[in-house]
């Protein structure tokens, strides 16, 4: 009798829980693994005060975009904005939720506690195989007195094997700073990586951290929300050369400066790259994290829940208590009002 009773209890439980779920509207957010930790901070706080159930998933930006377009998810999270050809004839909103950055990590014993200087052309050389060794003249030239400490060891460039918004922004930096990269591999969430014998592909940001930590003399690009992990792993991170020629670290003020440089250029549909902006202190690899939303939701109730949540995300959700934990930066006021205007377009 006992197993039967357990089954009945389970059935009763599932009926009551589905009934409870039906009472409130249900939203599904899916996509970017960089946005996922932020959603996990936002959703519990938001749903406590509002009668709505929000499910969050970390599936990757590509899945986020395609499921938002297909109508499976109400909110698709993506590190990259949708291109003209991806939008095609569909009308999808690209709404920035926060500003993220990316650091270039490296594992060079003895130099992990200082910050090496790296530039777009040098990184392009490392990733296209024309720069083989850490003591290459081009790396030495931009590192001053540190140059003599660079070892004669082969560099292991690590890139993402899966489709990734991080690949998107990293390759944009190379594209905008280096003509040969622009006419070669260019940028995208997956690109045609040049054949470099030592190169390694890794999966996800955790895989990048692991691979970089595991392989001496390697280099990797990793989302800023993993900065705590890369520091724990003992990896170094580089100061990057910005468009003004200055080498800058991914500090909060440098990221804010970088975002401010692109603030006024941001168009109404907010699809813009923040990479390699002008300004003396601008950190060069930064991006908006996007919510990809269909302006035509299936019914009025869903539309208003999506609007309410996103409006909260770009206002109350911008509090430092949320963003600091994942090293994201709040949207500047002008971007918040652009985002609000886009959110207002959501209907049914």
């Amino acid at each position: 009798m006992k197993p039967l009773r357990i089954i009945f209890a389970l059935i009763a439980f599932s009926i009551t829980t589905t009934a409870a779920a039906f009472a409130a509207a249900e939203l599904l957010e899916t996509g970017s693994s960089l946005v996922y930790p932020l959603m996990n901070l936002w959703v519990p706080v938001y749903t406590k005060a509002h009668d709505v159930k929000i499910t969050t998933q970390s599936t990757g930006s590509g899945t986020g975009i395609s499921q938002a377009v297909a109508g499976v998810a109400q909110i698709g999270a993506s590190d990259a904005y949708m291109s003209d050809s991806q939008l095609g004839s569909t009308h999808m909103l690209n709404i920035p939720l926060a500003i993220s950055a990316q650091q270039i990590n490296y594992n060079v014993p003895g130099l992990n506690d200082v910050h090496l200087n790296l530039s777009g052309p040098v990184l392009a050389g490392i990733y296209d195989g024309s720069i083989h060794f850490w003591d290459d003249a081009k790396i030495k030239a931009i590192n001053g007195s540190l140059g003599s400490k660079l070892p004669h060891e082969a560099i292991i460039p690590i890139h993402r094997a899966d489709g990734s918004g991080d690949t998107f922004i990293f390759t944009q930096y190379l594209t905008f700073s280096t003509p040969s990269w622009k006419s070669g591999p260019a940028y995208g969430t997956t690109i045609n990586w040049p054949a470099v014998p030592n190169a390694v592909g890794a999966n996800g940001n955790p895989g990048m951290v692991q691979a970089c930590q595991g392989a001496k003399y390697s280099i990797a690009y990793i989302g800023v929300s993993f900065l705590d992990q890369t520091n724990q792993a003992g990896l170094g991170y580089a100061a990057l050369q910005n468009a003004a020629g200055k080498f800058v670290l991914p500090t909060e003020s440098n990221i804010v400066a970088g975002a401010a440089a692109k603030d006024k250029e941001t168009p109404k549909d907010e699809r813009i790259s923040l990479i390699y902006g002008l300004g003396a202190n601008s950190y060069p690899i930064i991006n908006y994290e996007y919510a990809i939303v269909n302006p035509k939701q299936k019914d009025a109730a869903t539309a208003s829940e999506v609007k309410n949540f996103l409006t909260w995300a770009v206002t109350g959700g911008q509090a430092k208590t949320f963003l600091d934990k994942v090293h994201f930066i709040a949207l500047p006021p002008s971007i918040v009002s652009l985002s609000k205007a886009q959110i207002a377009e959501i209907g049914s």
Partner: protein
Amino acid sequence: MATVALSGAEKRRSRVAVLDIGLRYGTTAMALVTATIVFLIATFLIVYSWPAIAFNGFGILTHLEWNLGNQYGTGVEHRGGFTGSPGASFGAVVFIAGTIISSAFAMAIATPLAILVAIAMHYQVPRRLKTPVNTLVELMAGVPSVVYGLWGIGVLVPWISSSVGPFLAAHISWLSIIGSGSASGNGLLATSFILSVMVFPIMAATMRDVLSTFPKIVFEGAIGLGATPWQAVTTMVLPAIRTQMFAAAMLALGRAIGETMAVLMVCGSALNQLPQNVFAPINTIAAVIVSQLDSALTDPTGMAERSLSELALILFAITLSVNLIARVIMRGGDRVKRTA
């Protein structure tokens, strides 16, 4: 009393008859279902991959380059009546080569070990240890592949990178498959090693079962005539059951070819280049389908997704031909045995 027993027996007999008929039709139906499922999978793959088959042509079997094309550029590319993103190129040579080479290396490591362990399990292990040893090997076969993958990332890859690679490079670097040693530890050697660890228990367990079908009296007779156990096994037992042993190895090869998760975690996900030595990163068909799917979903032309489906079709064809070849060889082996 007697009549009751008789009618009981009758009832039982008629029930047995019904069960017999049920079994016959039931098993026939199930056999058909199996065949239909294989047929449906093949049909689905071909239909779904059709745009890619037309778009890529034979290029998919000859090109090294796997490139979704520029999704942030303008325009599209037309080929074979279908469209892809500008600059798109879907070549599967790297993945096909990676799949075959890593599986071949894995089999080379695992097969001799599995044969020895199967022999040991059947002939050498004392009776009271047999059950625990058998259970252990079967448990090994049941460990989820992601567990092997985690062990690969956490232990195997760093070990290859810091010890195995430098050691081999220092001592036998003249051997071109060793080259200048390992860089990151991820790659062909790590993949083959993990695959061999995964297929070894399956092979050992099936081979032990094959050995147990061989009459023990022949082995004991050989010992009685003065053969050493090694001579008995190598001259009497193994030649007699070699086709079944081969079938067991093929079963394991099937798993190695299709293994995804553990491979994805240690293979180094090479793109656009073939491995130059045993430490070089590789990629397999199964692993690349998983790692490229998310990006493929963002291709507005949908061609990337279709091309991944074509990769799956190629994997399906490889697995099927391995099976067919195995069957042909086994039939040949049987014929030899019969005429001998």
